[in-house]
């Protein structure tokens, strides 16, 4: 029984632009492993060289942060949905004095 992983916009270049990927496994860790096997380019964005999930990448099982479940060992049920939620900083180009250096006009 496959589970769905939601891919956030910034990571879609690494999943052939797919918004979600069907994966299978018994735990959150196995689902993520299946995902990075299917889409190799994602690996360095999700994991450190030592194979740990990166700190600025949050993974949610349904609406719950896996850090407050059993992390990557959290068991998954059929139909459970996984979301990757990376930090995004977008908004106004401000207030670092960068726009001026860039020559805003």
């Amino acid at each position, binding site marked *: 029984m496959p589970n769905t992983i939601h891919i956030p916009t*910034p990571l879609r*270049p690494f999943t052939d632009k797919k918004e979600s990927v069907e994966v299978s496994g018994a735990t959150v860790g196995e689902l993520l492993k299946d995902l990075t096997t299917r889409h190799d380019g994602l690996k360095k964005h999700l994991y450190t060289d030592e194979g740990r999930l990166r*700190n600025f990448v949050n993974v949610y099982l349904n609406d719950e942060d896996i850090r407050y479940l059993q992390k990557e060992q959290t068991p998954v049920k059929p139909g459970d949905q996984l979301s990757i*939620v990376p930090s995004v900083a*977008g*908004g*106004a180009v401000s207030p670092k004095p960068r726009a001026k*250096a860039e020559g805003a006009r």
Partner: protein
Amino acid sequence: MATATDVELPTLSAEEIKRYSRHLIMPEIGMDGQRRIKAGSVLCIGAGGLGSPAAMYLAAAGVGRIGIVDFDVVDYSNLQRQLLHTTNDVGRTKLESARNKINALNPHVQVDTYDEALSSDNAMRLFKGYDVILDGTDNFPTRYLVNDACVLMGIPNAYGSIFRFEGQASVFAAKEGPCYRCLYPEPPPPGLVPSCAEGGVLGVLPGVIGVIQATESIKLLTGVGQPLIGRFLIYDALNMKFRELKLRRDPDCPVCGTNPTVTKLIDYDQFCGIVQPVHEQATGATVSTSEITPVDLKKKLDAGETPFILDVREPNEYQINKIPGSTLIPLGELPRRYQELPKDRPIVTQCKTGARSGKARDFLKTVGFNDVLNLKGGILAWIDQVDPSQPKY
């Protein structure tokens, strides 16, 4: 909010009663709520994509004092989404433009503008006296700075963030609620997450997210409804879907946890691993041995040399302008397409400003391409120095 209960609420003039009548007849707001809004103050960090709609609705709603921190100048490329500013404002400061619009919309609002870059030195001074901080900036150092200052001062942060067609919103640093660091203890390394200037943004998206931030600000001021505390809202404009995730306060959070290690503002550029902004590197005076200037590239081409020019931007950027003879492989596709590149020709990598193509050059060197130079300043510098006939974006 302290202002709501502790201090005597201001009264409304006959003109204000007429203006806010649609609020006043709602039981959830009413006369009391409107007076709380009038007593309230919100500081918008940035008057750009998120700050524009937020400030306009806050002004229309009658927030008594709106502060804006910004030092940017209105540019043509802002007008696709920053509704505070109009074509006539191009070249003016965003603060001046914002003040004019807000005054025109609602003269009962006091507008306080701060023409400075938010920093660890001025954040506490600027935030002092405001009931809500509305964070609409586009870089990680400022995100962490705003968060930490809000936590340390006990001021809630109406947070919003956008990328392409996806937005995020929450209320951080409210009493008992989680903060931004509970969600993301550490920032991503510089360059891994593209900014809106690099990745683009659907113009209406900041409208939706900025208005959510304004909505939350008004709820915080009036105390009505269920604020977006401990919840993280994700909006996907392309599929028109909202999702909500649970946020928890992290007892180990370095700033709002039980044993905080961050007790005053720090150097956030250093915290985010930023040594020098990429754009400054791209326009700086020195040319490193792994770079080539547009003028030098043109000389080589004119001399009959045939370097392989690899454009690593996205296809839609390539439609706007390009260096003749260049080949497009977007940076994200490079790891699985680099075999398409010739092994027997020098390669020049190129993007908009030189940042992404610098990463492409570094990547190509790791997979066995030795003769790779990055075009300094990207296509923008090429247009400035070699081919002014092409449009810039």
